[in-house]
């Protein structure tokens, strides 16, 4: 019996070893770059050929968070633009999502196609040309201009998720409310909307993150006055200031990774299954 067991172990051992080695390799590929970034954020001095920073410290953090520093201002601009983008996107996406999920629409296919385009077409041509138009009408370099560009891209996600969220609401509940005498608006406000709320919350978070992380559109439309956090990070990095760039990158990582960890709590599989129906 123990011989059989030993033979079994001998066969299982290399497999377990290969499995552990592959997982370790993947962990290095995923976390290695992030760890390297974190090292740069706390490095005071670091040059070739030393493997690790020569001195650690918080000098650059103090510089980033200095009251007069432009990082805090950029963070403020980024959050303000993202909030406005969410407000605009949801204000137009919630009615549109409801109509797509519940009402009969003329040219439904064409409308769905229009809401697919911004995610399915390379965005660079759009940003380049809208920047030119905005420059002529005085919207270039303004918060309004950047919000409009972010919203035209973000609201598409919001429409799809909102439509899926409304489609996932059981319509017999709405019928029951209507049969008991609720008006269409009361029914929407007290039955449909609360039931679709988690999906709508997910779409709001998606739009917020997308706006917060957006680079190319802001790069073209925001110049020269709007500096969001991604632009600040890019400028620092291109200017060779790896510490400032890495600290800013870490700030941008917080919401991204936080959302990655909780995404499934907001986007239930019943909503995901309805996307694109």
């Amino acid at each position: 019996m123990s011989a059989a067991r030993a033979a079994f172990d001998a066969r299982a051992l290399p497999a377990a070893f290969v499995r552990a080695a592959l997982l370790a390799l993947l962990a290095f590929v995923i976390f290695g770059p992030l760890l390297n970034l974190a090292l740069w954020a706390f490095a005071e001095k670091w040059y070739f050929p030393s493997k690790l920073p020569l001195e650690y410290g918080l000098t650059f953090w103090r510089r980033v968070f200095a009251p007069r520093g432009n990082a805090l201002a950029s963070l403020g601009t980024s959050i303000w633009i993202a909030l406005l983008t969410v407000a605009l996107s949801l204000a137009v996406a919630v009615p549109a999502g409801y109509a797509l999920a519940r009402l009969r629409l003329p040219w439904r296919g064409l409308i769905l196609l229009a809401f697919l385009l911004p995610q399915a077409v390379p965005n660079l041509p759009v940003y380049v040309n809208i920047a030119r138009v905005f420059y002529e009408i005085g919207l270039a370099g303004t918060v309004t201009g950047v919000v409009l560009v972010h919203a035209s891209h973000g609201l598409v996600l919001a429409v799809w998720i909102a439509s899926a969220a409304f489609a996932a609401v059981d319509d017999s509940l709405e019928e029951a409310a209507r049969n008991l005498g609720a008006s269409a608006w009361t029914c929407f406000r007290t039955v449909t909307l609360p039931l679709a709320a988690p999906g709508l919350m997910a779409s709001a978070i998606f739009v917020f993150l997308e706006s917060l992380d957006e680079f190319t559109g802001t790069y073209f439309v925001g110049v020269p006055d709007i500096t969001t956090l991604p632009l600040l990070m890019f400028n620092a990095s291109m200017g060779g200031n790896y510490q400032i760039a890495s600290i800013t990158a870490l700030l941008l990582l917080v919401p991204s990774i936080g959302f990655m960890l909780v995404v499934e709590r907001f986007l239930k599989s019943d909503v995901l299954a309805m996307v694109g129906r």
Partner: protein
Amino acid sequence: MDSDVLSADGAALDRSAATARAVRARRLAGFGLVAPALAVVVLFFVLPLALSAVGAFRAADGSFTLAHFDKAFDLYTKDLVFTVAIVGVSTLLIALVAIAIAGYLTLGENPRAVALLRWLYRWPLFIPFVVAGQVMRTFLAKNGMLNHVLIGTGLIDPLAAQSVLDWRGIVVAFVWKQAPFVTLLLAGAMASLDRSHVEAARNLGAPRWRVLGGIVLPQVRGTLLVGLVLSFVTMLSVLSVPLMINPNSPTMMTVDVAYRINTHGDYAVANALCLVSLLLAAVGAAFYLRHSVGHAERRP
């Protein structure tokens, strides 16, 4: 509402006219609800896109010309090839990584390894490209962690250490950032498959890689293609990663577009380049449509 119409007798005609009016009104209301969102997309996305297509063919005096394309191809054919190669290789690698990870998540028999892998693979999922660029800029540099680990484990000689911040760096950044997205889609599709075929094949002694290739993958091909086409299109218009990792020629077309505009104010050639990238994306989309439609036709 229809049952009301049927149950009525004398007033049926009247009622059906009223119903038709109500249906029309509801359709109009529905369109009214969609209109604001549609207006934003049309004004700030579709219209600029059309401007790009027009601008690529317009001479300074407003007449039709192909000169901008001549100039674009004269200056940037090398970068066009470079772009197609980078995005193509990245898409291929993303497919391989996603199939391997999603396949193990679906067919893996060690619950702890599956749980660990599920937790591990998606960290870069929502990390923006511009941050991925910065992350790789430090990791792949000559003094980066990759080289130090390779030297430390004796895999390369310290003198052989070189920077990977060229086309390879762009590919690494793209795969690092996009593979989790395709894996997430693919693993979701695989999880919703009927397990009975998989169990049957496993019971008959088929190895896992054959179950993956012969039974699981053919059923989720559509999802894989959607993820890959979306990634392909996204990577085509990323500006930050090539700017940060490899801004010198040969580089990606997005860098050339930014250069034409920022340095020369040359929207015409920039738009010609943009149109070429739109055509590349269309090729990707056509590839997807042909395969998904072909798939649907073969289904009984």
